[in-house]
């Protein structure tokens, strides 16, 4: 009988290989249909009316003029909304025959506001009105008493947004008393939960379909207000309706990563050993609560430490999970403070990190990874203490960071069906955010059944398929690889029983390989895959595989907890303040890799997203108007292809890694880039640029403060 354990390296035919994603051809030809692309007969377009004020009472919404515009089919008003809390908050919506009519009519909805005083500033701890959180371990006074040096630093990173290229939204249609929704979502199986109180239909009459989606990064788990408006307008008009957020609304209200500003004190001995860390952090995630990012990050076992967190409530759109929530902030704040401590000690940064590696959860892994990263970037040869002393305006430097993440697979179910004609289907209510989920399921099933990749048809992206978790926190690959492996193994075993009878041997002597069912390690008794399936008669075999996280961890099918080390190489023009990426090296472990090409793509992508947050991203809010001034893609900058430099990715595989089972990879590599880059900039110019993004104006300001500006 086939065993569910992952095959050993020598026996793998697909797993761990570099394989092109199966839906690539659809994406490169425009054939892939995203929620934004769904068109239905009679489709109406919806435009939202949003608040121009950061805080205001609503005394009336008048949709008469809008409703009178020819082509307008319905105007929805939020009758329950009494007060808006941020610019961009949805107040009303207009459904019309064309997008142009809807846009024009939306401008004709008259909302009466009584403007109230607002607050959008987030960079002053005195603005915090909440009770601070406090996490103290050990004894700070003793810790600092043991220190030979004490470093005091201030650092910060602003609110940034997800800026998924496909905005949030969906197409909604009532047909024959059932509801059909095409949302751009990270949560196909449970998307309709959010409609429980809005729709009088059993959940099995709500059909959710998301075949391709244009990025989520943690912001697309919920049904959202626009999901509910879609249902309401579809009901009001009896027509399918499409709501996709405009870019400015998307950037203002559809999620962001909270800011984090910190005052950090680090005590260290002359040999570099850290004795105490005292941190006070503040920031905002909009009007809701705030949880302080972890400091000291990764070096969680430092004996004496305190973390005080102060949330600032602002009239801004609310936070959402942003790829590795709180980790990039904690990482940047911690690694900056540590690198500054190393500089104070006139100690090499890498050596300093290694000196303290025993304070991490995985000293061996980090040591191995740091060494590998150092080797790849030529650290020994090129490292210098803080401040590039070479002449000329271009200064070059290296910066180091390490990170951690969990990545345990979520609960997932997958039905694998073997048809009598030899075709195979895998159905799973998961979604492909662009990480290659579809491809990975096909690979696992094909590997398990010993058939070619193309022979497996993968059905995902619908809530009628077996339930699978939301794609967040690097949980998908662990979940779906185990459920599809389980399902495929069970289906295969059922087939082996049938084949065994025909071949006249015990089923546990059989294996599926190279398109055959054959005797293990012998092959003299065998039957082709097609012929074996034909033995099934008219009815297919369907088996459901299930990932139960605790159990798959015990069985080493999937586990959690990864490290990761990164080193950045930058050049800084000290006459203009411009930072240029030369290279970013990432060394990353993630247990058993299903598809090396896709895994590397994840890391490349994460590095670029990290570079973007390090150098460019910042939601700029205007204190007086409360508006996000750069709710566009011009001044809310994403890195372009010229900005990223050379990217070097090394995945840790083989013994000690593969045998841990599958672990998620979406989050970990996005955590370190900003920290490594900021450290590299400090290493280059000899002074800390304390706030992200590392814009030229901030670099020049830091240089001017030191009095070291070149010209």
């Amino acid at each position: 009988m086939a065993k569910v354990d992952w095959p050993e390296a020598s026996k793998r035919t697909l797993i761990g290989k570099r394989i092109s994603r199966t839906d690539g051809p659809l994406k490169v030809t425009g054939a892939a249909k995203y929620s934004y692309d769904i068109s239905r007969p009679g489709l109406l377009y919806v435009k939202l009316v949003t608040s121009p004020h950061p805080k205001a009472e609503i005394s009336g919404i008048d949709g008469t003029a809008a409703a009178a515009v020819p082509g307008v089919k319905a105007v929805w008003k939020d009758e329950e909304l009494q007060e808006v809390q941020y610019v961009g908050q949805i107040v009303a919506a207009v459904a019309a025959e064309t997008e142009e009519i809807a846009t024009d009519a939306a401008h004709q909805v008259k909302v009466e506001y009584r403007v109230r005083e607002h607050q959008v500033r987030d960079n002053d701890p005195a603005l915090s009105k909440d009770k601070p959180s406090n996490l103290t371990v050990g004894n700070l006074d003793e810790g600092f008493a043991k220190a030979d040096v004490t470093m005091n630093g201030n650092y910060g990173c602003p609110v940034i947004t997800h800026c998924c290229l496909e905005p949030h939204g969906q197409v909604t249609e009532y047909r024959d008393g059932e509801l059909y929704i095409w949302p751009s979502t990270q949560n196909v199986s449970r998307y309709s939960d959010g409609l429980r109180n809005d729709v009088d239909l059993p959940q099995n009459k709500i059909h959710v379909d998301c075949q391709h989606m244009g990025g989520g990064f943690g912001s697309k788990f919920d049904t959202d207000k626009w999901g509910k408006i879609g249902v309401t307008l579809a009901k009001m008009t009896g027509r399918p309706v499409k709501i996709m957020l405009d870019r400015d609304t998307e950037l203002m209200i559809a999620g962001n990563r909270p800011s984090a500003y910190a005052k950090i004190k680090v005590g260290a001995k002359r040999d570099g050993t850290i004795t105490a860390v005292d941190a006070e952090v503040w920031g905002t995630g909009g009007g809701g609560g705030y949880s302080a990012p972890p400091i000291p990050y990764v070096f969680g076992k430092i004996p004496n430490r305190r973390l005080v967190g102060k949330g600032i409530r602002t009239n801004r759109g609310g936070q959402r999970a942003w790829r590795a929530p709180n980790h990039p902030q904690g990482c940047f704040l911690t690694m900056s403070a540590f690198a500054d401590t190393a500089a104070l000690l006139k100690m090499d940064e890498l050596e300093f990190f290694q000196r303290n590696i025993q304070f991490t959860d995985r000293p061996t892994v980090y040591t191995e990874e740091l060494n590998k990263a150092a080797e790849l970037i030529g650290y020994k040869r090129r490292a210098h203490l803080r401040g590039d002393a070479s002449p000329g305006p271009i200064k070059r430097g290296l910066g180091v960071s390490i990170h951690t993440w969990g990545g345990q697979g979520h609960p997932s179910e997958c039905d694998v069906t073997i048809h009598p004609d030899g075709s195979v289907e895998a159905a799973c209510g998961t979604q492909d955010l662009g990480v290659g989920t579809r491809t990975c399921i096909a690979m696992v099933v094909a590997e398990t059944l010993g058939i070619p990749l193309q022979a497996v048809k993968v059905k995902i992206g619908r809530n009628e398929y077996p339930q699978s978790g939301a794609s967040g926190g690097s949980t998908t690959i662990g979940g779906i690889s185990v459920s599809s492996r389980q399902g495929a193994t069970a289906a295969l075993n059922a087939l082996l029983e049938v084949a065994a009878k025909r071949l006249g041997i015990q089923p546990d002597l059989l294996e599926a390989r190279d398109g055959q069912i054959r005797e293990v390690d012998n092959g003299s008794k065998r039957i082709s895959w097609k012929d074996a399936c034909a033995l099934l008669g008219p009815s297919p075999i369907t088996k459901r595989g299930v990932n139960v996280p605790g159990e798959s961890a015990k069985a080493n099918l999937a586990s959690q907890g990864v490290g990761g080390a990164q080193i950045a190489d930058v050049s800084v023009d000290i006459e203009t303040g411009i930072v240029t990426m030369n290279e970013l090296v990432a060394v990353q472990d993630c247990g058993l890799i299903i598809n090396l090409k896709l895994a590397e793509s994840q890391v490349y992508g994460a590095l670029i997203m990290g570079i973007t947050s390090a150098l460019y991203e910042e939601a700029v809010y205007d204190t007086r108007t409360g508006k996000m001034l750069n709710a566009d893609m011009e001044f809310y900058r994403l890195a372009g292809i010229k900005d990223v430099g050379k990217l070097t990715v090394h995945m840790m595989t083989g013994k000690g890694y593969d045998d841990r089972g599958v672990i998620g990879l979406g989050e970990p590599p996005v955590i370190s880039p900003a920290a490594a880059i900021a450290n590299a900039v400090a290493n280059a110019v000899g002074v800390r640029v304390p706030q992200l993004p590392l814009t030229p104006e901030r670099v020049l300001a830091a240089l001017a403060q030191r009095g070291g500006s070149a010209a």
Partner: protein
Amino acid sequence: MKPFEYSAPKTLKEACGLLGDTWGKTEILAGGTDLVTSLKQRITQPSRVLSLKHLKELHGIRNSRGSLVIGAMTTLGELAAHSDVRRHFPALVTAATGVGSPQLLSVGTVGGDLCQRPRCWYFRNGYGLLAQKDGVSLAREGENRYHAIFAADGPALFVSASSLGPGLIALGAEMVAAGPGGATRSIPATEFFRAPQSENEREIALKPNEILTEINVPLKGLKNGIYEIRHRHGLDWPYVTAAVAFGGKEGSGGARVVLGHVAPMPWSVPAAAKLLNTARPDEATAARCGQVAVEGARPLSQNAYKIQMARTAVKRAVLAAV
């Protein structure tokens, strides 16, 4: 966008006849890369849009009586690829290619670049050219990191967006505008850009019923160059640019130093230019030139860093041009 009427006349005369004498009623459409965005942002809500696409006479580059004549409808891509432009005016090539996007280069026009509206984020968010709310300047006390460091004592604090403007001024160009009946007048590049004093003025010297038809750039054999400082290495707006031209016939005094993105109009600095009228500038002269160029700067609360950038840009532009 607010719906509008559209026309694409075949002759310049006809086109001129379709314009009125107030701003904003009829907007001129060239490549559309800025206008269409402005329409979506409702910065302007014209009832009519007048397309120049059929006006062949506005298209192309020719040599005429000691000048290169650049039609307003010439695309930035055509400008940057034109052999005469490449030979004589590297500054313009740098400026055009600096826009950084093949898509913008293939439709954005020279005229559109010169007439494009400012990118000030208060303006683009609906607070007008002067960025005011309840009579208070939002930019003066607010988020002014990208705003003016020169001429910032007037009500307009935005910076002129055109990358070609500073280069054309440095090269001593003249703009030609056609008005009612197709009658033309010429406007020295130095006078083409202006700081509006009220919301019903615009930032260029054209009248509402005029069309920019061509730009004459004299072929004086000046050495010229531009240095642009951008945050991203690709498509982005410059923080600061500097255009320089010098080295004409001995004693001609034709040297010019013009800063971009530092004032509501390209900012000429004659005092700095003087240094370039003397000899072949060396590194020290270039640095001195940069120093002199920023002497009158009056930064706002967040943009003092631009002074350092402007100093560097001038120095590097001079060295690029030598």
